[in-house]
């Protein structure tokens, strides 16, 4: 992975983190107001879940260059010579 690619991946990670945190915050506010009598815990739960999703995406993105993808896998065959 080149440095430019790594930099782009980190930029994507940060942008994704901000978006998921904001989305979680918004959905948490909606649920808190509608169902949970304006308590704070749904807001914290949903924003935390958003951050967790962003972390997981980031982890997969950064690890993807080291993983062997399905199309690249080579099968091994054991040849048995019977005499």
């Amino acid at each position: 992975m080149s440095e430019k690619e790594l930099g782009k991946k980190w930029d994507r990670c940060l942008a994704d983190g901000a978006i998921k945190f904001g989305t979680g915050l918004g959905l948490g506010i909606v649920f808190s107001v509608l169902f949970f009598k304006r308590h704070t815990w749904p807001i914290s739960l949903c924003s935390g879940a958003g951050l967790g999703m962003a972390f997981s995406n980031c982890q997969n993105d950064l690890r993807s260059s080291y993983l062997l993808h399905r199309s690249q896998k080579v099968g091994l065959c054991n040849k048995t010579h019977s005499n």
Partner: protein
Amino acid sequence: MNTSVSRSTIRSPRRADRTETQRHVSKKRLATKVTIAGGALYIAYDSGLLGSSEQGSEALNRAKAAIPPAVEEWMKYFGLETPLPTMPKVEFSPVQAWNSGVRRSISSLSEAPTKATQYTNQGLQYLKDLTK
């Protein structure tokens, strides 16, 4: 004379005591709330906000492109003609500055031993010349 008020009169009416219309209204309210929450969740999912990081960054770029015209439109609608303060264009790039700083410090560290021997040799030569 018993003046104490029984607890059952103070307590809120039991579920069985509620009229059919009240139950109907509460069901409607619950249905409305579920619809709103479900709609919010669907909008978030459909616009790619809960997907992969590429979808998230695409959504952010779309939002960046859509917000300034929307803000201008709303300001015209409300009659506020004053333009928003634009971000001043700064020529300084912190990333470039940091990278050049790292490169300079590492190169000076790598050259430090040779330069140190050079300067000590020059100093010794100078002292030798002085003592001659």
